[in-house]
Every structure is written in C-alpha cells, then in structure tokens.
C-alpha cells in the first residue's frame, strides 16, 4: 500500500520535474533574447534584458511610466512612442490605440515586448518621476469618509513637485488584491515641504486602494509611491484664479493655494468648495486662515443640502449655482477644477457661459 503510494508520488513528481526542467531550459534558450538597448529621446541609452514588456524594463531602470492597472493591459494609460524597432501591433494593444496614435507609433508599453534595440520618446518630465519609500507619519479623519494620509519620505528623502500634481500609491497584496496595484492620488502638501507628501483619500465602497487606506493602513507602515505626474498645476500668469472643488478634490487645490501663500503671490484667488451638508466639510479653519495670509483670497464653501442642525450661515445651493452667482472674475480669469467628472463638466459649462475661454480652464477629473 505504502509502496504504491510512494511510487505514485514519485512518478507524478518525476513528470512534473521533467516538464518544469523543460520549461526552464526553454526559458534560457528560446525565451532568452539577450540584452537590448533602449534609446530614450535620442540621447539616454539603457541596456535591458530582452523579452520583457517595455513598461517593466523601464521600471527596472528607474523610468516610471504612469499605469493604473499595473501592466495587465486593462487601463490603457502606459502609452509610449516607439520610433524605431517597434514592429507590428499586438492584438492586445489595439483596443487602446486610436488611428491617430497608430500613425505616431504610440504603443501600449505593458504589452509591447522589447526583443531588439529600440528607440522611444517619452515626455522629459517623466525622468523626474521616482519611486519613493515612505512611512505613514499620521492619519487623520477629515470627514466621515475622507482620510488625510501624511507620508514621510525615507528613500529618496525629498521630492520635487509642482503644486497640483499627483502620485501613484502602491497597494500591497491584501484580501482584495493578490498582486500590488497602483492608484493615483493628488498631493495636498505644499511643494516647499520637500520631505512629506499628504494625500486626501475618500472611502469608495469596495475600492481596492481606498479600503486598504481606510481599514488597514496604520501609522508607521511603509508605503511605496511613485511620481510626481500630471499637468494640473498653477500656470504662471497674472490672471485672477477661480478654484472649484468637491470632496477629496480639495487636495490639489489646497496644495496650489498653500504654494501661492508660500511664495507671496499677489494674484486674486477665489475658492469655491461644494459639499452636501456640514459633515462633508473639512479644513475650514485652514482655508479661512489663508484669507489673511494671502493678498486677495476668499474661501467660499457652499452646501447643497444643509441640515437644520448644521446651523449653516454660508452659501447654499449647488456649486454651479454659487459659481454662477459669485464668480465675477470669470471673463478675465483662469480656473482650476478638481472633483467628480459630473461636477467638472457642469462647472466648465457654467464658466464658459460666464465668458471664460475653454483653454483657460484646467481640471483634474476623478475617474
């Protein structure tokens, strides 16, 4: 009995080992593409192991391409222009590539594999993108569903960012995900505080990252982030600015305003913040304190459904109505919007009706 059992185990192990060995040999011979050169923007040359996806190869060399799905070909964000040695498109890339992008040889870098020497073009600012190891310095509940996460940078110890940009937060494996995933969040911290990053994260039911942050993350935990990314930042003009935000859209706007106060900007600024009732409002004192610190700044929080117990004396109505009533700077100003797609689209419409040209409306949509 035991002998038969042993033989069965032996045989099945032998078959498995044989096949595994075959795979290892194949991996080292057929799957071995040697090293390939990646030339970036015509000057920087990287030598990488061939056969791996471009996204992973670049990651390994410290060049980070924004990607929300972590390389599974399901978000379509990690596009890179491959100008030489690209070859044909894979069927797994095509759903994400428009005809226009195809003409410019834009590839999906998580699917495109490096098999020979290639030349690629990526925006210069991606070189300043780094991966940071950080420690959670503090966690604070801003409202019933928004948490402030303050991270202390460990390695590298400082970040160079523009107010309004975002980072990607790496969620490690836990009960909702069996592989690390990345989610993008705007930084709420002021750029001059180079050793810290602050995030404002709202709990989304069953959201992989938001659940992790709200239910599992503790002070002292290590968090990996990479960034900074994004072109949502204050433009260098003298125009008056109108900021509009809702919920955790507060984050990049707070960063922009703190940065202005920090630099002693004299630009006129108005900040409309929309919420449902008083329990959705946060950082009121900080924002009101900015009114005295900045040359010409007004913070205008507005509630759409104030509750009797809120005892609300401020503006009442949908944020779009409040903007329409009060944003007299619209025709000559520029606007910075952050929040849900619905809110942003509605606000763009109102601002255009008030006479603001579309090219002066900058926004960061949550999606």
């Amino acid at each position, binding site marked *: 009995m035991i002998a038969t059992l042993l033989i069965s185990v032996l045989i099945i192990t032998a*078959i498995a080992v044989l096949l595994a060995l*075959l*795979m290892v040999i*194949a991996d080292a011979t057929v799957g071995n593409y040697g090293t390939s050169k990646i030339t970036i923007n015509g000057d920087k040359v990287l030598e990488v192991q061939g056969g791996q996806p471009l996204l992973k190869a670049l990651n390994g060399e410290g060049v980070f391409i924004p990607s929300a799905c972590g390389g599974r070909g399901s978000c379509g964000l990690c596009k890179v222009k491959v100008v030489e040695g690209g070859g044909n498109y894979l069927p797994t890339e095509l759903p994400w590539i428009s005809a226009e992008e195809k003409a410019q040889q834009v590839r999906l870098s998580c699917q495109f594999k490096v098999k020979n020497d290639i030349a690629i073009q990526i925006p210069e600012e991606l070189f300043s993108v780094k991966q940071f190891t950080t420690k959670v310095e503090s966690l604070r509940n801003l409202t019933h569903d928004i948490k402030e996460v303050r991270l202390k940078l460990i390695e590298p110890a400082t970040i160079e960012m523009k107010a309004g940009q975002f980072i990607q937060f790496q969620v490690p494996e836990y009960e909702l995900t069996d592989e690390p995933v990345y989610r993008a969040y705007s930084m709420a911290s002021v750029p001059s505080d180079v050793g810290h990053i602050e995030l404002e994260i709202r709990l989304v039911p069953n959201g992989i990252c938001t659940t992790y942050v709200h239910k599992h993350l503790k002070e002292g935990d290590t968090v990996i982030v990479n960034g900074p990314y994004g072109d949502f930042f204050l433009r260098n003009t003298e125009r008056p600015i109108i900021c509009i935000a809702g919920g955790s859209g507060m984050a990049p706007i707070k960063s922009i305003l703190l940065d202005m106060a920090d630099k002693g900007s004299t630009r006129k600024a108005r900040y409309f913040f929309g919420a449902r009732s008083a329990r959705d409002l946060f950082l009121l004192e900080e924002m009101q304190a900015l009114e005295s610190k900045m040359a010409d700044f007004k913070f205008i929080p507005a509630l759409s459904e104030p509750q009797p117990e809120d005892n609300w004396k401020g503006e009442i109505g949908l944020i779009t109505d409040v903007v329409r009533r009060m944003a007299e700077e619209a025709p000559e100003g520029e606007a910075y919007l952050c929040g849900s797609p619905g809110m942003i689209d509605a606000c763009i419409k109102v601002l255009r009706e008030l006479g603001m040209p579309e090219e002066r409306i900058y926004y960061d949509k949550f999606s």
Partner: protein
Amino acid sequence: MSDIFFPLAVFFAAVFTNNILLTNYLGMCSFLSVSKELETSAGLGIAVTFVMAVTTALNWLVYEFVLVPFQLEYLRFIVFIIVIAAFVQLIEMIIERYSEGLYFALGIFLPLITVNCAILGASLFMVIREYTFMTSFFFGLGSGLGWLLAILAMAGIRQRLRTAKIPAGLEGPGISLVIAGFMAMAFMGFNGMITIS
C-alpha cells in the same frame, strides 16, 4: 474494417458524426466567446487543431509508457492537464521567438487553449476507446478539424446575425446556443455514415 483504414475512419467520424463540439458539447466556452469574427475563429480553430493532434499523441505515449506500467491510470486527468499546459506554453514561446506572423495569427490564442476542455476531452476519449497511437493522432486531428468546422460555421452565421432582427431576450449567448443546437441537429444527418464507439 481493416487496421489500415481504421484510423482514417476515426478521423472522418471525429470531424462529422462524432464532432466533439456538437455531439459532446466540449469546448463550448471559447466556441461561444471567440466566434464573433470569422478571422479570429479560424485562428483559434487552427490552433486548437494543432494542439489537439499533438497533445493527444503525446498523452497516448505518456499513458502507455508511464501510467500503464506503473498502474497509475487514475492519475491521467492531472497528468494530461500538465502535459497539455506545458506543451502549449512551450509552443507559445517557440512561436513568439521564431515567427512573428504565426504568433500574431495563432500565438495569442494559445493561452486560451490550455483551458479548452475539448483538448483534455480528446485525450480522455482516446483512453476510454482504447485507440492505438496512430488512431489517437488521427482522432485528435479529426476532433480539432471538427471543432474548427463548427466554430467557422458559427462565426459565419453570427456575422450575418449582426444585421438581423433578434428578439431582445435572445441576443448574445441566447441565440448562439439556439444556433449551436440547430447545428448539432444538422450534424446528426451524418449519423450512420460511420460509427465509432
């Protein structure tokens, strides 16, 4: 029937009368999900044919020379699956390395095939029906071609269905299953031509 012609008889039976998809209903999931376009269906069908023919023969060798001598026939399910998985993986690596055209046409379907139950089914039938090596190979080839024939027919019909008016409740998988049923009935017309057990 003489021994020389038996493999051929099994081959034709596997394509028509005993079509693995339409009489045994194996390999339905990829049959339903990939049969929207004629071109991709052909790619998948050819890949299935190739893998089925080779793995049935391979598994015959493994069964006859490893499992039977050690009286481990009951392990055939698990052994067949790992042989198929390893073979598919190897082929994918080889194709990706040496033939870009083939990789784009067939390679991307290979990972889908590992979990295609028709392929495991062909290996298991060959054991139950006690086929010889040659017969097993032709049975695998025939079953693969039969599967290819069925998915091509289905894709052709579904391409035409795109412009047809279908009751809302039947759209998508509903109408596809009904069509698969009709096709199975049509294939019953081949019954009696050749019979294999």
